[in-house]
């Protein structure tokens, strides 16, 4: 592990350090701005990487990822508005602490907890990922099919309230991904005679359209209600952190980090869920649960440690299987694809230096995040006060640039508009976007491995279950689907009974 780290560090030059710092700063601004998610920010910055080499591009994206995940705590604490869903639970105790005159202390706790979660999850990533890759390298098409099937069912069932809608969203993604060339025989399908569709929809356009355009359209709809400006009421006089403040909190942070890593490994879920679960666990395990929500450090430390721990965890399925752990790692997958690098178990053999470089980049990014946020939080507070009515149209322009920049085709703007409309309509009908994105990304892989698996098993799908590991994974997926369905039905019945009484 240390040798790999040394190799990775060997790639980091002064220019790479600057690029990481730039990525972290931009990520913090995106993360701190309510309405702009980490995934959206990373999708918008993708065009900037087109002229970089692979190592630089990955370093930049690593900085954005770490900075974006951490930046949400600023507005969460100062405005009671989480900058990203990953900082929702930070508002529960962060805002009360700020209102009690300890805004600096609350921010300090958040920053230190974010650093702790990020570093510990990175160490776990470096230790676990190569070992997991040695296992997954032996995965055949049946196991790969089972893993992608499990990923899509997990995300469909864990996100949102309705498993039916989650699965429908996933299938919409898979159907959209089937446009273009079939994976096995390369026949073109669903192109409607449009030659630009022959290669399918570009992943970048899908991500920009779904993550950015649909969110911006939602803002436009309510723009006459929402005030475009934010007002910060708190004045800082330093953070006031002392080492003894963290005594008795080490186990809280470790436990929250473990929650974050575990949630990160589960494909498609991400930091938005981890911070809430970690907060709930911290509250349930606390000797003074009644104090949660009044402005105590335990809640802030739990939430922020967990959300940054997702950054390491989410990279594990991406690097070992090619399955993104969350939306941000889906963007990282897009970056790797642009450079013709296929993530998966062979990545450690064919591009081991790149992987080690990524580990080193994440470490540098976490260190920069700590330094930049501790020293520069006042600057970021000023930056996010840019009125939304200027900021969001500007972001729309960046989306257009992103669409054109990849293939130098104006027709890709149409793809962004189409997917933005699809994303907006899906939100209106209560369909979550995350399963759709996962379905889009994993659909072709699932189809290819399914067809190859059928070839290997002599056209028998039931023979998939003759392979023990495949059978276990498929059974877990099916059992979990059934369990979540029953749980949702019981919840709906209970809600109906309660509302009637």
């Amino acid at each position: 592990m240390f040798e790999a780290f040394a190799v990775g560090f060997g790639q980091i030059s002064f220019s790479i350090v600057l690029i990481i710092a730039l990525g972290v700063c931009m990520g913090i601004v995106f993360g701190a701005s309510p309405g702009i998610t980490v995934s959206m920010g990373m999708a918008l910055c993708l065009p900037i990487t087109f002229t970089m080499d692979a190592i630089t591009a990955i370093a930049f994206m690593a900085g954005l990822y770490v900075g974006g995940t951490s930046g949400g705590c600023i507005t969460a604490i100062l405005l009671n508005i989480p900058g990203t869903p990953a900082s929702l639970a930070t508002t529960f105790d962060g805002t009360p602490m700020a209102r009690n005159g300890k805004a600096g202390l609350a921010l300090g706790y958040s920053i230190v907890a974010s650093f702790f979660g990020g570093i510990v999850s990175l160490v776990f990533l470096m230790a676990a990922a190569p070992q997991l890759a040695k296992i997954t390298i032996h995965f055949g098409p049946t196991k790969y099919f089972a893993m992608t099937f499990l990923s899509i069912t997990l995300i469909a069932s864990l996100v949102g309230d309705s498993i039916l809608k989650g699965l429908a969203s996933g299938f919409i993604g898979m159907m959209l991904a089937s446009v273009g060339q079939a994976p096995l025989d390369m026949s073109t399908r669903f192109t409607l005679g449009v030659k630009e569709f022959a290669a399918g929809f570009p992943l970048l356009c899908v991500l920009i359209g779904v993550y950015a355009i649909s969110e911006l359209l939602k803002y436009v709809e309510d723009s006459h209600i929402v005030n475009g400006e934010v007002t910060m009421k708190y004045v800082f006089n330093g953070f006031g952190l002392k080492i003894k403040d963290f005594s008795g909190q080490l186990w809280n942070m470790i436990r929250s980090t473990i929650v974050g890593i575990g949630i990160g490994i589960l494909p498609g879920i991400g930091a938005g869920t981890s911070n809430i679960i970690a907060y709930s666990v911290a509250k349930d395990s606390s000797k003074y649960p009644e104090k949660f929500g009044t402005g105590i450090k335990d809640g802030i430390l739990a939430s922020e440690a967990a959300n940054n721990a997702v950054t390491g965890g989410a990279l594990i399925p991406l690097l070992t299987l090619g399955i993104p752990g969350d939306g941000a790692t889906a963007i990282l997958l897009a970056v790797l694809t642009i450079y013709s690098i296929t993530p998966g178990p062979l990545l450690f053999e064919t591009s081991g230096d790149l992987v080690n470089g990524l580990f080193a980049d994440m470490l540098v990014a976490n260190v920069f995040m700590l330094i930049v946020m501790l020293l520069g939080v006042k600057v970021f507070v000023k930056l996010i006060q840019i009125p939304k009515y200027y900021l969001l149209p500007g972001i729309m322009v960046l989306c257009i640039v992103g669409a054109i920049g990849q293939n130098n085709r104006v027709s890709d703007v149409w793809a962004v508009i189409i997917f933005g409309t699809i994303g907006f309509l899906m939100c209106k009908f209560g369909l979550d976007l995350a399963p759709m994105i996962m379905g889009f990304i994993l659909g072709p892989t699932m189809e290819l491995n399914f067809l190859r698996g059928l070839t290997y098993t002599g056209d028998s799908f039931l023979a998939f279950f003759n392979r023990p590991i495949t059978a276990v994974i498929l059974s877990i997926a099916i059992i979990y689907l059934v369990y979540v369905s029953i749980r949702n039905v019981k919840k709906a019945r209970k809600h109906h009974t309660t509302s009637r009484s």
Partner: protein
Amino acid sequence: MFKRYRDIFLGIFLLAVTGLYYSGTFFEKKLALSAYGGEFVPRIYCAFMLCLSVAILVNGIINVRKTKESIDVAKDEQETFFHSRLGGAKVIASMLLLVCVALMMKPLGFCITTVLYLFLQVVLVIPKERFKFWKVALFVVLFTIAIDVLFVKVFFVPLPVGLIGF
């Protein structure tokens, strides 16, 4: 009314999409060497989507019947597709602006298209009391120039120049 019958609308819409998608599988050319053509897995998707669409539709009908007597019904009856007429008009206008950008980008070029688009988009979302023509115009022009210089000169990402040459 939209919120109350949302799942019914969704179920019907998904059924229609599934039907169209299924009909699209008959237009593929199957290669003689391939045991499974490109239409095989899409038809499996259609089967699952058919079941899910029917389930969502049935679920929607059941929920409508169950919540007939609920006090939330009156509130749901008032909810429309867009939160307000003004909001809906703004969303449609924004989408039309994006369509115009896609149409005009090649003939007019990035700079002129962006200036026009940005100005109109800001006018759509800015509160009336904050609108000052010179401020908006200044922001629009400076932002467009900054993006053009940044991406073309610094990041070497070519942007359409249009018939006028910039």
